[in-house]
């Protein structure tokens, strides 16, 4: 019995990924029909995101450290945050349009198609131009890595890709949970910006900058701290936020798995509560 359930889950997952890939490729093709427009919006996105870091550079034209962190270390945190968020944003960032689909009733079309709804919604209007954010994050992370004096060990090297993948998944979970919330609060789509864009902005700065209550909140309630703060503290050899134990730096994959599971449950509950506008 249990084995059967696993087998169905597995095939559903594969089916979902296939649907996602097909829809995403379709959107990429449609974007590429206007290559100049694509290039301009991608570069524009890169500039918009880059300004974030320019603001930090401007700050550092007046100071040497912020919250006890020097510029290269902040660039390291910034790059990790921007990359993890950039992956999630590229993969399923269009999900915040779900509220619109619920309101105007176009979600019905997705419900009757023979493919998992989550995959369809996630791939909807797949925006390749969002690689702008990833590019910018890579450049800043590259600078951080080059300028930081890190005592590399094999374990630290291994932690880097693990941290980025887990961070991306944590942000994906936030996107999915936010979309699930939109089934209930259609117009309130903007709330999730506080956690997605707000989250990545928060993680660009060191935890020492923020109030203890806020750090507790993003560690134990919405575990964004595991995207970069906690694992990066290990890589940089810095004290952990909230005095967490050293092994906490290796828990991001676990945290990401729990987040995804919870977000999946929220999504199912949201989808079940969906009622069409009927128009």
């Amino acid at each position: 019995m249990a084995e059967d359930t696993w087998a169905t889950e597995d095939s559903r997952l594969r089916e979902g990924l296939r649907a996602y890939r097909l829809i995403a490729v379709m959107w990429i093709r449609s974007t590429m029909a206007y290559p100049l427009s694509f290039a301009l919006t991608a570069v524009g996105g890169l500039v918009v995101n880059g300004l974030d870091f320019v603001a930090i550079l401007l700050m550092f034209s007046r100071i040497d450290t912020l919250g006890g962190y020097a510029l290269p270390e902040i660039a390291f945190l910034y790059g990790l945050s921007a990359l993890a968020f950039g992956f999630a944003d590229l993969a399923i960032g269009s999900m915040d349009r779900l509220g619109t689909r619920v309101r105007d009733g176009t979600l019905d079309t997705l419900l009757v198609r023979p493919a998992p709804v989550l995959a369809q919604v996630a791939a909807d209007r797949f925006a390749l131009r969002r690689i702008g954010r990833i590019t910018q994050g890579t450049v800043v992370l590259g600078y951080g890595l080059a300028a930081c004096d890190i005592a590399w060990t094999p374990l630290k090297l291994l932690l880097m890709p693990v941290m980025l993948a887990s961070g991306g998944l944590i942000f994906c979970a936030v996107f999915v949970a936010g979309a699930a919330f939109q089934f209930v609060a259609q117009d309130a789509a903007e709330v999730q910006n506080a956690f997605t864009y707000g989250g990545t902005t928060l993680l660009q700065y060191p935890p020492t900058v923020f109030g203890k209550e806020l750090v507790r909140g993003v560690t134990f309630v919405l575990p964004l701290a595991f995207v970069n703060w906690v694992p990066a503290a290990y890589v940089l050899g810095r004290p952990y936020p909230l005095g967490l134990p050293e092994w906490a730096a290796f828990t991001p994959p676990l945290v990401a798995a729990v987040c995804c599971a919870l977000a999946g449950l929220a999504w199912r509950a949201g989808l079940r509560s969906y009622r069409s506008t009927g128009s």
Partner: protein
Amino acid sequence: MGSARLYAAVAAGGFRRYATYRAATAAGVFTNTVFGLILVYTYLALWDERPHLGGYDQAQAVTYVWLGQALYSTLAVQGGGFENDLMARIRTGEVAVDLYRPADLQLWWLATDLGRALFQLAGRGVVPFAFGMLFFPMALPDHWLTWVAFLVAVALGWIVSFAVRYLVALSAFWLLDGTGVTQTLVITGMFCSGMMLPLNVFPGAFGEVVRALPWSAMLQMPADVLMGEAAPLGTYVFQVTWAVALLTAGRLLQSAATRRVVVQGG
């Protein structure tokens, strides 16, 4: 007299349109508060490191953050007001109907945007600011006249913002697709208005240039009036100069557009 009533009705319509979406307003308030919280902590760390940076003390820096969050949607610093509607109407050709109306195109949209701005000041601005006042030490004036002077500066800042966005919207007569200019508006709005970092912190000649651009009339100047860092009169002169220049440019562009451009038909 009659035309004043018309524009008042248009403004009331703009107000009601935004007032309809209560959940969206609540969501906006929540998001602005969260962003304010993040910014406040980074600013506190920054001013901790460098007290009196840009002539502000910590309480003033905190006040600046919450002012920014309160005025963000009111002034449509990054766009998001009437200009998207107008651009869509230009693209579809519906603007021809607007031009036939016995009302002035610029004043008509100014009135709708006034309604929007007033609602967003009350609906989205007050709560994040009150939250900031409750939980952080702020530098607020003792005299009520300063508040009046501040509100005048906000009103003038809004007119400058409108004038910039009107130019952006009219560009659709030639470009049809407004994505590029809208994106430019987002970038300049975010950076040059001082939304990310107060303009008086910007270093050297770069700072001088940014502070002379129209965007500094939107957030930086009203904030300085409220905190007693700038004389109201000089501020108003700067704001009115930019408002008049940009509104006139809007008029000229409008007459060029209506004379030369063939409206999209369908």
